[in-house]
Each structure stands twice: as structure tokens, then as C-alpha cells.
């Protein structure tokens, strides 16, 4: 299941950046983007047969570039940047939850929330993502992580794998 989720996360993320932001990966930037500073993060919670969260973190100048590309504006405001990143997180999450299987409850995806650094530590400090990927673009880097609540608890981990 972990592999399936990772594949779904990768496909959804790449397609979303290409189709929505018109941004294409540049994998060879991997090394030069290694130490870019965290600039923004957005999280979307999902509820259903499993509950959890999708988290997207941007580094470099990606936060602004996403909003610029989506909204066709050169200098997007902070609100626009947060909304654009949130929408990306929302679309990716909606696509990834299908890889969890067709359950009885279906999935409800909550509105995205912009996170500050303290929130990030609180939300992800004790949890391990089930899947995570990194996409490198000319404008910066996106780290996208998919969490299932309780996944880091060994008993649950057994069930997922």
C-alpha cells in the first residue's frame, strides 16, 4: 500500500504542477536545491476510512511562483500566495486519497490551512509520512508529504504495509 500511495502522490503532484501551475520539474537541480530555506507550508486534512493530512512545503521562491503562474500576476499578495498553495495541496490530496482504496465512508477533504513554522513542528514532529516526494523546479523546491494518522504507531504500521 505504501508503494501505491507514493506512486499516487508522485503522479498527482507532477500532474498538478504541470496542469495547474504550468511548471515542469528540473530533476538535475536536486543538489543545488538541497539547502534551500523553508518559505511556506500548507496542509489539508482528509477524513474517511483513514484520516490524515497532506502537507506541502515550498523552498526558494516557489511560494510566489505558484501564485504568479496560476493567477497570471507578477506580484501576488500574501493571501493569494497562501490560497494558491492551498489549492495545490487540495487537488493533490483529492487525488491521493483514491489510492487508499474504496472504503465505506469515502473521503471528505477539509479546507487547506497555511502553516507557520511552529505549526509545522507541532503537526509533523511526532508523525512519519507514509509517503513523501520532492520536486525541483527552476523557482525552488516542493516537498510533499502524505500522512495517515497513527501511522508511526507500530501496530498501525503493520496494518498499512
Amino acid at each position, binding site marked *: 500500500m505504501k508503494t501505491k500511495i507514493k506512486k499516487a502522490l508522485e503522479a498527482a503532484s507532477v500532474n498538478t504542477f504541470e496542469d495547474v501551475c504550468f511548471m515542469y520539474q528540473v530533476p538535475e537541480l536536486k543538489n543545488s536545491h538541497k539547502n534551500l530555506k523553508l518559505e511556506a507550508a500548507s496542509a489539508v486534512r482528509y477524513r474517511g476510512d483513514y484520516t490524515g493530512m497532506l502537507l506541502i512545503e515550498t523552498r526558494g521562491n516557489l511560494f510566489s511562483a505558484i501564485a504568479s503562474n*496560476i493567477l497570471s500576476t507578477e506580484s501576488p499578495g500574501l493571501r493569494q500566495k497562501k490560497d494558491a498553495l492551498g489549492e495545490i495541496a487540495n487537488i493533490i*490530496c483529492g*487525488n491521493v486519497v483514491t489510492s487508499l482504496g474504496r472504503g465505506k465512508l469515502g473521503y471528505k477533504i477539509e479546507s487547506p490551512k497555511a502553516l507557520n513554522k511552529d505549526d509545522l513542528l507541532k503537526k509533523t514532529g511526532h508523525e512519519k509520512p507514509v509517503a513523501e516526494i520532492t520536486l525541483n523546479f527552476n523557482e525552488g523546491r516542493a516537498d510533499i508529504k502524505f500522512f495517515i494518522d497513527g501511522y508511526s504507531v507500530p501496530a498501525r504500521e503493520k496494518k498499512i504495509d
Partner: protein
Amino acid sequence: MALNILVVDDSSVMRSIIIKTLKMTELPLGDIWEAQNGEEGLHLLQEKWIDLALVDIHMPVMDGEEMIRQLRKNNQYENLPVIVVSSESDPNKIEMMLKQGATFVHKPFKPEILKEVIIDVTGVSDEDKD
């Protein structure tokens, strides 16, 4: 024939994405109207001439499902082409939309996919532009 289009989505960013994508299709576009939820969408339908509605599912006040249900109850709009644009993955929900005569486009989508679906449901083509 230029298409007057109603875009119903609670996210202003998503509405911008849809409108930008619509413009990229090079289809003949007339007026594009925006609504934040199904209720606003229904009001706009009463006030404006609209040829096609692009509707999200999950919205506050009135969601897409309810909006389409209300639309189909009204003789005036029972044949209005409706495209549901959503990242919804629940096959039951999607099937329900299809039963109401809507077409489903999954987010994210490429401009050419949206263009194909619009041509399919409205019969318009890019040759109608001039």
C-alpha cells in the same frame, strides 16, 4: 456562437485556474460569470443568459450536487450543459452527478481535456470563434 459560461467554485484561486484554462482552449467565449456557491450560481442563472456551467462539488451554503438537483427541477435549465470540475474520487458521488446529466472533469486537468469536454457537451468548436 460565443459561449457564456458560469464558473461556480468557493475557491477564488480555482475559479482563476478554470477561467485561465478556458481562455487557453481558444474556444469562442462570451461572458464568464463567477459564483462562490450553488446558491449564488442559481441566482446568476436567473439573471444572465448562460450556455454552460462549470461547477465544483464541495462548497459551503449550497454544494454542487444540490445546485444541479435544483437546476434539473427547473424546465428552463433541465438541458443546460453542466460540467462538474472536482478532485472528488468517490465513484458513487460521480455516478450521481452523471445521472443528473452532468459531465465530470477530474482536477487537475489539461486545457485540451476541458476543451474536448466543452465541445462534446455544447457542440461549439474553435472554428466558431470568428
